């Protein structure tokens, strides 16, 4: 196993793509921090909290691509048979690839966070405890993402594994975002035509609502109608749970620091709710174990020709 890991890390560190990705991620993270520094002059209180965790979005796209490319090279060059011929077990080969890809992610995360902290030096972190906790959950969700991508890349020997891995990353990420946004729809929505803003002599701005025929209507009298986009139970709970389990949904839960929920009574009161962090970490651990176990089982039976 140690020999396999040694060889994997050697190959990784000699890869131009690995260093190019590290450079892109570091530059992107530093750029975000510098932009945040620019905003600090505007309201005097820009925080680094979200900037530190935001770099995970780019890693979510790059990690599956690099994972697919790294593992598929073994099939493409035929080195996977060399590894087996010299006596390494399939389990050791699978696990060494998994560990290498996750170590790469840890390296990327460390680089990005360091870049934000260095480029954003002088800006404050509002809630350091929360940031550390969010980073820890991110590391767990990347463990699950690594398990999924390694699973796909190890079982598809064909070149299309690269496209599959890239699509898995994009699909989970944008699918998670789409589900998050659709679950945020309120149950009822106000049914008015338009709003007119007027500023009186005292400088107060007043909003006048108009109905669909253009007649003035009091804010209290605006009829509330069922929102066609609202997702009812039990699908609501199913989708929320699916999004809490899959790494793409977890990503948005962490990046947005919770999810918005509207009250069902039509009062249009919006609150932020959090899926407990321990629950997200637990789901990630379960997804990791599931895909690792399944991957090892299927890879043992795989015909490597």
């Amino acid at each position, binding site marked *: 196993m140690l020999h396999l890991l040694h060889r994997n890390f050697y190959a990784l560190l000699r890869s131009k793509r690995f260093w190019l990705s590290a450079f892109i991620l570091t530059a992107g993270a530093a750029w975000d921090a510098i932009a945040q520094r620019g905003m600090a002059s*505007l309201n005097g209180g820009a925080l680094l909290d979200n900037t530190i965790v935001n770099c995970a979005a780019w890693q979510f796209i790059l990690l599956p*691509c690099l994972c697919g490319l790294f593992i598929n090279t073994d099939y493409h060059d035929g080195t996977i048979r060399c590894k087996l011929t010299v006596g390494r077990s399939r389990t050791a080969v699978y696990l060494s690839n998994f560990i290498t890809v996750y170590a790469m992610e840890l390296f990327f995360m460390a680089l990005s966070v360091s870049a934000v902290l260095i480029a954003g030096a002088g800006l404050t972190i509002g809630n350091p405890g929360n940031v550390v906790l969010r980073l820890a959950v991110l590391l767990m969700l990347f463990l699950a993402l690594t398990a999924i991508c390694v699973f796909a890349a190890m079982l598809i020997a064909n070149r*299309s594994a690269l*496209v599959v891995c890239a699509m898995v990353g*994009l699909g989970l990420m944008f699918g998670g975002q789409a589900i998050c946004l659709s679950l945020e729809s309120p149950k009822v929505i106000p049914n008015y035509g338009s709003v007119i803003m007027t500023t009186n002599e005292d400088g*107060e701005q007043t*909003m006048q609502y108009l109905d669909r025929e253009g007649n003035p209507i009091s804010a*209290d009298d605006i009829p509330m109608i069922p929102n066609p*986009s609202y997702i009812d139970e039990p699908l609501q709970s199913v989708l929320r749970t699916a999004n809490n389990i899959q790494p793409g949904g977890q990503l948005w839960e962490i990046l947005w620091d919770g999810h918005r929920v509207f009250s069902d009574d039509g009062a249009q009161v919006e609150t932020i709710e959090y899926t407990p962090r321990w629950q997200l970490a637990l789901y990630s651990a379960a997804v990791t174990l599931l895909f690792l176990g399944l991957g090892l089982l299927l890879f043992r039976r795989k015909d490597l020709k």
Partner: protein
Amino acid sequence: MRKLLSANLYAMFRSKRFWIGLFMMAATAVYMVVDINKMKRLAAELDSGLFQSAILLFILLPALGALFINTDYHDGTIRNKLTVGHTRARIYLSNLITNCAAGAIYIAAYEIIYLLVGFPLLGGLSRPQEFLIKLGILLLVFLSLTAIFTLLATMITNRSVLLYCALLGVGLVLAAQMLNARLAASEMVDDYGGVSFTTNEDGTVTTHYLDKNGNPIKPEDIPRVPNPSYVKEPMRSFLRTVNNIQPGGQLVEILEDGHEEPDGSKPQTPYWQLAAYALATSLVFTGAGILLFRRKDLK
């Protein structure tokens, strides 16, 4: 050339990936009609979903096209094509035309299924002429996208080209959205501490602005400060032109019916201009591709 096209199309139609892509486009069409039908009560119409599959196709087409072209390098069939006497220009153009045909088939499949399912549920199109114009420009946008990824897939023989092409479409669309957001930022911004809303007895809603110390402040007294995110000239015009030229920017321009400006207006880049840029991009990338492919060492 005809033989090359015939072989390419035969290979394309025998590929499972092509049919999976077609199934995805058809499923998206049905899903869009069902989704819009739910919004019927809020004046949603058939026209609103006509081009919603374009973003999906922007990701699918480069990935499929790159896989298709890279197979020639992977299996060594590109040397067979050259050995039997086909010129490199013909091979390049036949690949480009095959990928364009795949894109056109996907778009046609989506539009036909969308309209067939949509007519009985949502009624007719309210602006059929606009549909035809936009469809024409969309085809040109996909032509320029195809020209770009065909160049990439032909010049990079390595497997990694599959990733570059898969990320190309997403990258172009995301870059366009980020540029549009930057260009929509206003030059000056209000520098106030907060806002409070109160509902009056007559049902109107009054907005009160507060300064940084929490004291009420009149809207006209709110200090205006330069927005650090505002993009100044000449960078502003340069970025707008880049977004008008690159296929991702053109796609966003078509889907969102224009782009937001800092003053709140939403002008549209003229369609003829988008079409001209798309054609020029296609010609430049195809010309460059043929030129570079002629000199490429195929070992």
